[in-house]
C-alpha cells in the first residue's frame, strides 16, 4: 500500500461550493438486471472522491455513466452544468471536459506516445500541432517520462503506460478526472509510480473520482469515501472516520477483507 503518500501537500486541495457533478435518483439496468439503484451524489469542484466496494457492486458502471460510456435509464446526471441525455452535443461537451483513465490503459498501440497525447487536442480542441506537442511534452514531464515520447505503447512498462494514459487525459485540460481501477492491472512495484502521479494531480486541485482498492491512497488524498454494494451507495464518510469507524455491517465486512485481517 502506498505508505509513501504521507507527505501530501494539501495546500491547494480546497473544495469549492461550486457543484461539478450532480447525480439525482439515477437508476440503470442491464437488460432486467438492476445494476445501479437510486444513486444520489453531489460532487463539488476540487473534491477527491474514492469509490470502493466488492466486485460487481456497480462502481465502475457508475463512473462510466458520468461520461456516458454507459447509458442510464432513469434519473439525472448533470456534469458541469450540462445534463447527459441522448443529445450528442451534450455528450461531446461533457466528454471533452471529463478525462478518464482505464484499468487497462487503452493506449492506442498504432500511435507513438506523443501522437497518443496530441490526437484529441488536435482533432477535438483544434489546437495547432506544435502547441499540442508542447502541451504533451509538458504533461509527459509531469508524469516523469518525457524521454519515452517517441516510443510506442507496446515498448513501455505497465506503470509507464498508465502514466501516459493519465497524461493523455490531462492534455485535454479536463476539469474532472475519472479513474476506473487505474492500478488493478499493474504489478505491485508499479502501483506506487501511478499513485504518486495521481497524488500530484490531487495536489494541483483536480476534481477526481477514483474507483480503487488502494486504501492508502484514499486515506492520503480523498476527502470522501463512498462504499457501494449491490448497485447502491451503502455508506459514505470522510476517510479517517470511514476506515476507523465504519458504520454498516457490509462496510465492516468489506474493510476486514480488503485490509486482510
Amino acid at each position, binding site marked *: 500500500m502506498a505508505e509513501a503518500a504521507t507527505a501530501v501537500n494539501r495546500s491547494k486541495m480546497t473544495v469549492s461550493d461550486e457543484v461539478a457533478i450532480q447525480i439525482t435518483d439515477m437508476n440503470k439496468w442491464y437488460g432486467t438486471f438492476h445494476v445501479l439503484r437510486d444513486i444520489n451524489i453531489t460532487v463539488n469542484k476540487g473534491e477527491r472522491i474514492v469509490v470502493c466496494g466488492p466486485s460487481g457492486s456497480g462502481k465502475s458502471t457508475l463512473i462510466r455513466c458520468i461520461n456516458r460510456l454507459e447509458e442510464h435509464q432513469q434519473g439525472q446526471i448533470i456534469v458541469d452544468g450540462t445534463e447527459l441525455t441522448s443529445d450528442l452535443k451534450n455528450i*461531446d461537451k461533457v466528454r471533452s471536459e471529463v478525462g478518464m483513465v482505464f484499468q487497462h490503459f*487503452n493506449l492506442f498501440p498504432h500511435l507513438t506516445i506523443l501522437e497518443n497525447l496530441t490526437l*484529441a487536442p488536435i482533432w*477535438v480542441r483544434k489546437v*495547432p*500541432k506544435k502547441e499540442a506537442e508542447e502541451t504533451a511534452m509538458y504533461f509527459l514531464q509531469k508524469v516523469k517520462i518525457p524521454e519515452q515520447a517517441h516510443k510506442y505503447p507496446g*515498448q513501455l512498462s505497465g506503470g509507464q503506460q498508465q502514466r501516459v494514459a493519465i497524461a493523455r*487525459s490531462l492534455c*485535454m485540460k479536463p476539469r474532472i478526472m475519472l479513474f476506473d481501477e487505474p492500478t488493478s492491472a499493474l504489478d505491485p512495484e508499479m502501483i506506487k509510480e501511478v499513485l504518486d502521479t495521481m497524488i500530484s494531480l490531487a495536489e494541483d486541485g483536480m476534481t477526481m473520482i477514483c474507483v480503487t482498492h488502494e486504501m492508502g491512497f484514499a486515506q492520503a488524498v480523498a476527502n470522501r469515501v463512498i462504499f457501494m454494494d449491490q448497485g447502491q451507495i451503502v455508506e459514505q464518510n470522510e476517510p479517517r472516520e470511514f476506515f476507523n469507524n465504519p458504520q454498516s455491517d457490509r462496510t465492516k465486512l468489506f474493510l476486514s477483507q480488503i485490509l486482510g485481517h
Partner: protein
Amino acid sequence: MALASDAPRAGFRLGILIYDTRYRSLTIQVVFLFLSILFFAWLVTNTIHNLSIKGKDFDFGFLWVRSGYDINQMLIPYSSDSTHGTALLVGLLNTLLLAFLACVLATVLGIAAGVLRLSKNWIVSRLMAVYVETFRNVPVVVWIVLVNAIMSNSMPEPKAFKGATPEHSMFLDAIAVTNRGVYMPAPAFTRGLGSVDMGLFMFNLNFLAILVVIWGSIWSYKWLQRDATTVQNATGVRPVTWWKSAAILVVPIVALLLGLGFHLENPVLKGFNFIGGLQARNSMIAMWLALSIYSATYIAESVRGGILAISRGQTEAALALGLQPGLATRLVVLPQALRVIIPPLISQYLSITKNTSLAIAVGYMDLRSTLGGITMNQTGRELECMLILMGIYLTISLIISAVMNVYNRSIALKER
C-alpha cells in the same frame, strides 16, 4: 585442450554420426539431400526415357508458331494467325482482368457483409450470417456452374428485344442481359490517339492517357490532403477540402474524355443478335459473379474478425477523450483494424487469382484455356505447357506474397 584429449578414443564408430550432436544434423542433411537427388534423378530419367519413347523433344519453340485458333474474348489484337505466344498473352490478360474485377466486387461485398454482420440490427446480422455460411460451405464450382446455367437458361434470347413491342427492353437503351451474355455500351473515341505496336501486341494510347490523368489526379489529391494537414498543424483548423478534392478528381478526367471525343457506342440489335458495344459472355459473368460472391464471404469473415480484434477499450478511450464516434472510428479503430484485415485480404486476392483457373467449368478463355487447353492439345506439348502455366501462376503468387511481406513488415506494431 586437455578435455578433448581426454575424450574416449574409441575411434570412428558409425553410431557417432547419429548420436553425437555435432554430426547428427549434418548426417541427416546429407542423407536427405542424397535421397532427394536420387528421387529427382529418377524422375528426370523417366521423363527423358518416356519422351524418347513417344518421339517427343523438350522445346519451347511452339510459342512462336501460328496458333490457328480463335479466342472469343481478347484485350489485345489477336487472330488465328497470331502465335501461340500471343494466345498465351491473351489468356493471361483475360485471367488478370477476371481476377481484378472479381477482387474489386468481392472486396466491396465482403466489407459490406462483414460490417453488416456486426450490426446491432438483428435481422440484418442474421441475414448476413446466413449469406456467409451458405456460400462458403458450398464449392465455388457449384456457384460458377449455377450462375452460368441461370444466365444461359433463364435470360431472354437477343431476339426477345426485337420488334415494335419487344418482350424485353434494354436497360437505358444501352444494356441488354441475354442468354448469350450481357451487351453493354463500348467506350469509343472520335479523336483517339491510336495505338503503338509493341511487337507482341498493340498498345492503346487512349487507355494510357486515361491512366496517366487518373494517376495525376490521385497524386494531386494526395498533395491537397498533405497541404490541408500542414495547415491544420499550423493553425489547428483543418481547411475544408471536399470541393477542391472533387474538382481535382473529376475535372481533369472529364476534360481528357471530352478532348478525346469520348462517347459510348450502344449495342444494336441486327437480325437475331446484337452487334457493336461490348459483350460480356455468360462465362465471364458467371465467373465474375460466382467468384466474387463466394470470395466475399471469406473477406466478410476477415473484416468481421479484424473489427472484433480491436478491443472495446480502444473505442471507449477515444470516446472518453472527446472524439466523436466517426473520428474515433477513423483515427483509432480503422487504422488498427486494417492491420488485421489487410493480410488475409491479400491472401484472398491470391486465392481469387488462382480460382480464376476454374474458368474451365464454363469455358471462359483464361490462361488455362488458351495455353493449358487448346495450345496444349494442338501442339501435344503437355510438359512444356504445364511448366509455363505453373510457372506463371507461381510467379503471380510469389509477387503477391512479396507485396504482403513488405506490407506486414511496414505495419508491424512495435513491441518490446
